[in-house]
């Protein structure tokens, strides 16, 4: 098992470099350049050619593309992600680092809620297929899929923020945060989280519970479930133990794949709630052609995706004895 994991990790390295190469190429070949956008374009009547040339030199954009890539890669090997091209000229890792905690927090809370809710919903609607509950959740799921994030967000803001005044509308802290006591600060932070988490959860919940239902439906039609019932096991044990474990398999894959997504914030939710997370950072970087930030983010996402795939594969063998056994037999 350990050997397998190591082998996979070593193989992942050239893949990672390949990914960065392609991304680097694509991003640099996209029309537009970071230096174009810093002349105060609309409001200044100054000619900005000299500034551009100065910036091209500072950023190293005057060198050929392969030279740029090589110097980026060698710096990356020393874990130096470079400095942002935006006028704050801050190290990329710092910029990502200050936004990552918020995004991670939101996404982990969201994912946890989704899993906790989606599994029982899926199981119930599968075991009581075509019941009233199943039908209602089906409608709910369609509504969830069809509701645009920003619309739901605005509606909730109007209801709970403006009309009822129960919850803060946007951002993560009140303007008077630093004047609050320790506990008030934490309470303030929590109340700010409610709306964004609800909005982010709503769409994801719909999809996840559907997966669960589908997977469960397939499992309970299997022969071994029949045998379990025939043995006279209680329905709760049949579903909760025999069926559920098998039905969870595909869910593990989906969960594994959503792992890299944990660090990519949702642009819509972040913009509408004015939360400074990864989504906003990335979108701004793309519009400003801030190559080091884009690439830094891509490297992290790519690496996480590869790791997540590996973890998903390993987890399979943990929860599915069939895979474990097959692997052992194959080796013999």
């Amino acid at each position: 098992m350990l050997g397998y994991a190591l082998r996979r990790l070593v193989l992942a390295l050239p893949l990672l470099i390949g990914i960065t190469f392609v991304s680097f190429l694509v991003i640099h070949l996209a029309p537009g350049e970071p230096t174009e956008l810093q002349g105060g374009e609309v409001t200044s009547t100054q000619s900005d050619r000299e500034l551009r040339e100065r910036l091209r030199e500072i950023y190293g954009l005057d060198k050929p593309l392969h030279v740029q890539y090589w110097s980026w890669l060698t710096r990356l090997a020393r874990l130096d992600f470079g400095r942002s091209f935006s006028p704050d000229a801050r190290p990329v890792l710092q910029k990502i680092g200050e936004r990552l905690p918020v995004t991670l927090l939101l996404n982990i809370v969201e994912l946890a809620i989704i899993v906790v809710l989606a599994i029982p919903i899926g199981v119930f609607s599968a075991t009581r297929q075509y019941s009233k509950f199943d039908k209602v959740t089906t409608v709910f799921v369609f509504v969830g899929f069809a509701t645009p994030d920003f619309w739901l967000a605005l509606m909730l803001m109007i209801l709970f923020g403006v009309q009822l005044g129960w919850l803060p509308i946007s951002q993560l802290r009140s303007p008077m945060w630093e004047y609050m006591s320790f506990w008030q600060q934490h309470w303030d932070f929590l109340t700010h989280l409610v709306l964004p988490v609800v909005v982010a959860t709503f769409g994801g919940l719909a999809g996840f519970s559907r997966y669960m239902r589908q997977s469960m439906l397939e499992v309970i039609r299997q022969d071994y479930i029949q045998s379990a019932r025939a043995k006279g096991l209680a329905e709760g044990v049949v579903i909760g133990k025999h069926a559920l474990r098998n039905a969870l398999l595909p869910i593990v894959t989906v969960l594994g794949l959503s792992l890299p997504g944990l660090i990519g914030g949702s642009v819509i939710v972040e913009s509408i709630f004015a939360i400074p997370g990864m989504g906003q950072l990335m979108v701004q970087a793309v519009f400003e052609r801030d190559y080091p930030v884009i690439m830094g983010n891509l490297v992290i996402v790519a690496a996480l995706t590869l790791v997540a795939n590996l973890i998903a594969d390993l987890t399979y063998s943990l929860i599915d004895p069939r895979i474990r056994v097959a692997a052992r037999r194959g080796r013999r």
Partner: protein
Amino acid sequence: MSPRAAVRLLGLLLALAVAGCGGEADSSVDTGATQTHVAARPAYGDTYIEALRGNISGLIPNVLSDGPSFEVGSMIYSGLVGYDKDSNLKGELAESWEASRDCLDFTFKLRRNVKWHDGHPFTAADVVFTYETMVNPKTPTAYAGDFKPVESVVAVDPYTVHVRYKHPHGRALQSWSIWMLPKHLLEPYVLEGKLREAPQNRANPVGTGMYRFSEWRTGERVVLTANPDYFEGRPYISRVVYRIIPSSATTFLELKAGGVDGARLTALQFKRQTEYPAFRKAYTKYPYAANIYVYLGLNLKDPRFADRRVRQAFAHAINKREIIEGVRLGLAREATGPYKPGTWPYNPNVRTYPHDTEKARELLAAAGWKEKNADGILVRNGQPLKFDLLTSQGSDEGRKVAEIIQASFKDLGVQVEIRVIEWAALLKEYIKKRNFEAIMLAWGVTPDPDQYDIWHSSKTSPDELNRIGYANPEVDDLLEKGRRSCVEAERKKHYDRLQEVLAEDQPIIFLYFREELPVVSSRVRGIVPAPIGIQYNFNEWFVPKPLHRYTAG
């Protein structure tokens, strides 16, 4: 979740939809019912919360270029000169100044006893340092051009600065509104060419302005506190919080819930969604003409557009009033040229182009566009009069204006295809390469009328701003004369004539000056709306004691 819970949730969603449609009248805006009876006596204290559309990119505005950074930066820093409410220059850090008759020598007398936020005295050495920073080839600033014509800047004594120009420069005085930077803190970074990486660009900037920096949380907020030693007196409002809220819809809801005190509205919000009593009571609107006008640019290298009559025909065909009503809900003023109505360079007596489709038709016919092809499009020598109009993605306004123009040109037999392109790509691939037929863009207007870079025939290379390729010897001459003088009356003569020629030529079709639409909480007093806007006297804004909302002293 039980079936009943799911049903309840659906019911809730329906209720939300209704809440979104109406019910604005009973929203929970904090109205402060007693405020009209409160004596408007200035008092120190309270916090003012303003919504910012975007994150600031740094804290040394001299090397930045985005609006939010300037807004925050101009609270922290000050220049030798500034603008009064009518956009006229007035002394800031300079107490007075003298200009020689030939406009080559300027002597600034600095205010004494001005201190940097860290307590260091502000002296002439800082002025010289700021100048050297701006012209240092290693400084990545967009404003170096203003200081090119300077021959020397000398500190005569700690409170006198002498500036000599190589040749007369129209913008000379205006350029000294540049934010002064502290020599004792920034010198090493400037010498290394690392001003952007200086810690003062990230935290603890030190200026001489009315507010001191207190905190910046990226993408979240910037907090400033009143500078008790400000040279024009301590500002009344003791704390300013900028909340960074990218979405205009969210900003608006925050306003309604009382989460911000000041914000800029969209035309729709300003006109249609804020006219109910509770909002009118809680907030005051201060519209003023923005320094930005929207235009339709035609590539004059295209032989079809090189003919002035075609451009004049287009000007007649466009119904500016309809555009202003349709796109800005009336919140804009027709532009007759590149200067803002109400400012000193503006000349109202120029040729105008009232909406007149017949006249447009005649002009086009005179230019040889008489026949129509099977599709109803005008043709000349087999070439149809149709073109692509490029506009920037994300500018809803640009797209709407383009659509109205498209419709009115269609009646004329001119076919317009609208293409929406992302800004960075539009700039690099189309505008800079002059690879366009028509563009829908906006120009910012500076207080000084020098627009040499936009209209002079020598400014047409890819990186320069005469994007449409305009060349008119008379205009070139007027621009040169205008910038070679520092006497306002004399300059006005040149710029008046410039506007006449531009109106006649219509090198671009001037459409409208947009209006800025700020609202401010009614508890804030001391705001005097003026042509330049409302921010200019922020240090005199105050909240009467009984209306203080936040306890910050």
